């Protein structure tokens, strides 16, 4: 695992590690482009019943920015079965890495450091595994997202920031990572650039489940009448949860990417 991690870092090229950093990295078990997310309590947006529960989150490391096209290219080069023309249609739909011109070519200078998108959950999970990391759980991701924003225009709330992003069409070339929204933890672009896969996105049971189907569905799609969301005016969260529930693991979407986490044992 350690070896794979080191190979990965070498391949990324953009990081020039000196020996001390390397020693550091082995000691901490995470790469320098991850930030520490301290333990804490978090109130999930979707609640099972009337009683609001909080979930305890253990400390973990999270990628500072979402995985870029260039980083993903290194993974594909090392794992050719994830190249566009080799991938099983079970694992990604036909738009997989559509923004790249070839199997091992991005072909567009402008998006090298932009988030990789048009990747399926399977591809994201395989990348995470290859780097010795994991995809964040839905709770980890939402918890980290709730960190206070840094440098938002005065008077603008996170929700209004997100909603104004939702209302804009996805640009032809996504902006490079770490050029937009930042939060206090030091995480970039948790909102405002792309949607991100989470490990258990399919835990949002939207149809024919065994128990609370009715209430869950209502709380997902019928915002104003819902009893089950903790903040009914939080349309941004409603949209995020509704979006997740519309996904399947092989889907690829033009503004859906991912970042990884590393749990602390």
């Amino acid at each position, binding site marked *: 695992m350690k070896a794979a991690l080191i190979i990965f870092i070498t391949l990324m090229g953009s990081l020039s590690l000196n020996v001390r950093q390397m020693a550091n990295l082995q000691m901490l078990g995470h790469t320098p482009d991850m930030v520490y997310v301290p333990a804490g309590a978090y109130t999930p947006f979707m609640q099972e019943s009337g009683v609001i*529960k909080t979930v305890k989150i253990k400390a973990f490391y999270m990628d500072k920015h979402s995985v870029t096209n260039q980083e993903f290219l290194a993974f594909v080069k090392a794992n050719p079965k994830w190249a566009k023309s080799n991938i099983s249609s079970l694992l990604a739909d036909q738009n997989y890495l559509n923004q790249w011109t070839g199997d091992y070519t991005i072909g567009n200078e402008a998006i090298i450091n932009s988030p990789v998108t048009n990747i399926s959950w399977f591809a994201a*999970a395989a990348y995470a595994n290859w780097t010795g990391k994991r995809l964040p759980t839905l709770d980890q991701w939402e918890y980290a997202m709730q960190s206070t924003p840094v440098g938002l225009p005065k008077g603008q709330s996170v929700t209004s920031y997100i909603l104004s992003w939702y209302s804009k069409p996805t640009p032809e070339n996504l902006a490079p990572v770490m050029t937009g929204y930042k939060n206090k933890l030091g995480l970039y672009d948790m909102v405002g650039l792309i949607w991100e896969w989470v490990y258990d996105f399919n*835990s949002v*049971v939207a149809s024919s*489940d*065994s128990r609370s189907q009715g209430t869950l569905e209502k709380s997902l799609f019928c915002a104003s009448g819902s009893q089950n969301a903790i903040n009914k005016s939080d349309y941004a969260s409603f949209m995020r949860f509704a979006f997740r529930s519309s996904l*399947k*693991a092989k889907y690829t979407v033009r503004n859906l990417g991912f970042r990884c986490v590393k749990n602390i044992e």
Partner: protein
Amino acid sequence: MRFLKYPLFVSFLILAACNNATKTVSVNADTIVQTDPQQATAINSVYLSEEPWINQDGQKTRLKDLTGKVQVVAMIFTSCGYACPKMVENMRAIELALPAPLLKKVHFTLVTFDTDNDTAAALKLYARQKHLDSNWTLLHGTEDQVRMLSMLLDVQYSKLPLGGFNHSNQMTILNQQGEIIKKIQGLDIDPQRSLQVINSILNKK
């Protein structure tokens, strides 16, 4: 999106059928199978991982070991009060409706969501209670294995804070290579429809 995939899938079936035809007339069938570029057919198999699961007898088993028979698969947990027993009942109905010669070519597999409590022993007990014989495999895996399989089969689930699971109810019929042929949603299902699907898979062979 699903519809777009369908013709692809049909073409796979046709290719598979052609291969089989070639095999039967060929003297050296083994070589053909090994060098056959269309072995890539199995590229759509859900039996991707080599990671071992544990069956109801406590034995290590890989999903690949399910290759060779048509599989009727569902994800359940044994302490589930209503939906899962109904699902198993539906699968039993299919088993009972299958004529003996066909039954030999079909297998039933249950995979538990409950990685904490559904040990091999718990699965064994469940199998006994539900009269599930050697036509059935009950699998226990790690959380990652179960999550991955749920993604491959398109089954949604989450663990509830007070125990138990929320999950979608789906029975999946796989062909002998582990490719998904049919997903049947819900609990109110007609076994005859599943029989038709199984028949059509077996007739392709």
